[in-house]
């Protein structure tokens, strides 16, 4: 696997720095020697993530009264209820569209943005500070801000578009079925871009300048340098950015919950807001079903990420 990474890297282009042994005496360790290096993360994760996760699984196997008191075991009843629920497929389709479109757009635009941020021009610092703002602002507040901006009657976006004669009539971005999803996706990409652009920028900056310089001296065109040197060396950063975006966008709660607040039923919900509404808003009001959906959500994102890692051959990266 290490060999595959080397192939993707600059070495076989003949322009990179000479690398001696891939394996050195520092390369192997026994299981026991890992303990002092890994103990704190393991303890934190076990205490704060694993324990409540077990509680979630227990809840998904329990039956609750309408007021939320545990009545006893439900077996897999909550799961069968969820899987036979009419809205499940709508919700899953929404989740798929939401995750794929937001992550794809975020990575593509983020890559361009990072590339642009690496350039030198007057006003660059101001632009970098500006880009951080959607990330620095709380998502709950940004979601509330956008419900105002996109509002049919009070919103400045409609006002602006009408004033510029780009549209004749105001659009009900958050109520009109054709517009709700595109509007939510737009806001989703907007708030995901800062993080993505900065991870990719950090990745770009970690690429040694002399490798790129050497390729240029050897007469490689900018496009060739980009495809054969920059992108392969950017793989770790691209991996981190895309996997974490998959997870965060999938788990994104405040945006969808707030922007979609007006719409009845689950027509524009993703599986995360669906799970929340099952406990607190739906006619059923079922804590058990909500927990079961919570467990299914984790399994779903797990499968998505594993399939993704498989596709992009993550072993090359983790064993680099």
């Amino acid at each position, binding site marked *: 696997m290490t060999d595959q990474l080397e192939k993707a890297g600059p070495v076989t282009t003949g322009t990179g720095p000479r690398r001696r042994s891939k394996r050195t005496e520092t390369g192997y360790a026994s299981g026991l020697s890992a303990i002092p290096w890994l103990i704190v993360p393991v303890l934190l994760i076990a205490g704060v993530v694993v324990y409540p996760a077990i509680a*979630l699984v227990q809840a998904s196997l329990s039956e609750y009264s309408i007021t939320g008191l545990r009545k006893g075991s439900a077996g897999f009843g909550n799961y069968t209820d969820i899987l036979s629920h009419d809205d499940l497929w709508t919700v899953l389709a929404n989740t798929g569209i939401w995750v794929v479109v937001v992550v794809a757009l975020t990575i593509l635009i983020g890559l361009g943005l990072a590339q642009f941020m690496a350039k030198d021009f007057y006003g660059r610092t101001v632009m970098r500070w500006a880009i951080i703002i959607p990330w620095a*602002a709380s998502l709950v507040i940004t979601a*509330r801000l956008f419900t105002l901006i996109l509002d049919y009657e009070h919103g400045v976006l409609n006002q602006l578009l009408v004033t510029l004669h780009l549209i004749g009539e105001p659009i009900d971005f958050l109520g009109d079925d054709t517009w709700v999803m595109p509007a939510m996706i737009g806001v989703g990409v907007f708030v995901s871009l800062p993080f993505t652009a900065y991870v990719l920028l950090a990745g770009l900056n970690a690429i040694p300048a002399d490798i790129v310089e050497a390729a240029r001296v050897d007469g490689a065109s900018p496009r060739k340098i980009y495809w054969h040197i920059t992108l392969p060396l950017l793989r770790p950063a691209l991996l981190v950015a895309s996997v974490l975006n998959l997870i965060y966008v999938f788990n994104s709660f405040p945006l969808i919950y707030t922007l979609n607040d007006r719409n009845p039923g689950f027509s524009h919900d993703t599986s995360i807001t669906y799970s929340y509404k099952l406990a607190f808003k739906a006619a059923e009001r079922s804590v058990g079903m909500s927990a079961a959906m919570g467990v299914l959500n984790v399994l779903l994102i797990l499968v998505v990420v594993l399939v993704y890692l498989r596709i992009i051959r993550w072993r090359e990266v983790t064993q680099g």
Partner: protein
Amino acid sequence: MTAATVSVRKKARPYYLSLIGLAITLVFVSPYAVMLLDALRPAHDVLASPPSFLPREWQWNTFGTVLSDSRFLNWLKTSLLVAISSTAIVLAAAVPAAYFTARFRFPGRTAFLLAVLVTQMFSPTSLVVGLYRQFFDLTMVNTYASIIITNAAFNLAFAIWILQGFFASIPREVEEAAHLDGCGRARTLWHVMLPLTLPGLVTTVIFTFIAAWNEYVVALTLMSDDSKKPLTVGINSYVTGYQQHWDELFAASLIAVVPVVILFALIEKHLVGGLTAGSVK
């Protein structure tokens, strides 16, 4: 710094890049410019129909009102405490783990990395009930420690993954050289590897600080004492069913952005450092 930037610097910096930069800046700033204008007009004007771009009536004292509100200052203090402490814990835990997993093959290595990644997949929203029960049993509900620990744990995965990538990208030769010069493992990590991974460390700090700064669901559930809430939870009491102080909510939100931008401005230049350049030779 990439070679591309170096070559641009030799020439005059082209103005069209600045124009594109300005356009990008406007896209990212404009929603928050709307927020600023809404903070500078009375709450009833925020929901006026038709809307006006500029306030019909300017109200200049909103920021002063918020900054002299003792509740707001308490929330601000909590947010700073929680974000700084969580970031420190994440760095202390993630740096050794990331370094070790990047440099050594050991039994359970892949399992460890996968397990870390899986923990990131649980949304705090679905775990918060279990978290509440756990901290209740430990009589830690309503303590700063509970949300600091939770934030640290939820952000570890990102830190370990990104730092692991950065450590792995540093050629082994660098480390071997330090080793030959008589540096022990820990000293090599501290004096040689950390400076080289500075862009990764900066990314980790910015990311963790912002995530802890903006965390909402866990703090909402674990902090019932009004004076101990962080900003994200506290400022929502400006707009409830009974009182609609949109101006104060938005002013407070904009002030809450300031510490993040300051932190960012302080350490951002290290993202551009390109410290690995030349170390390979």
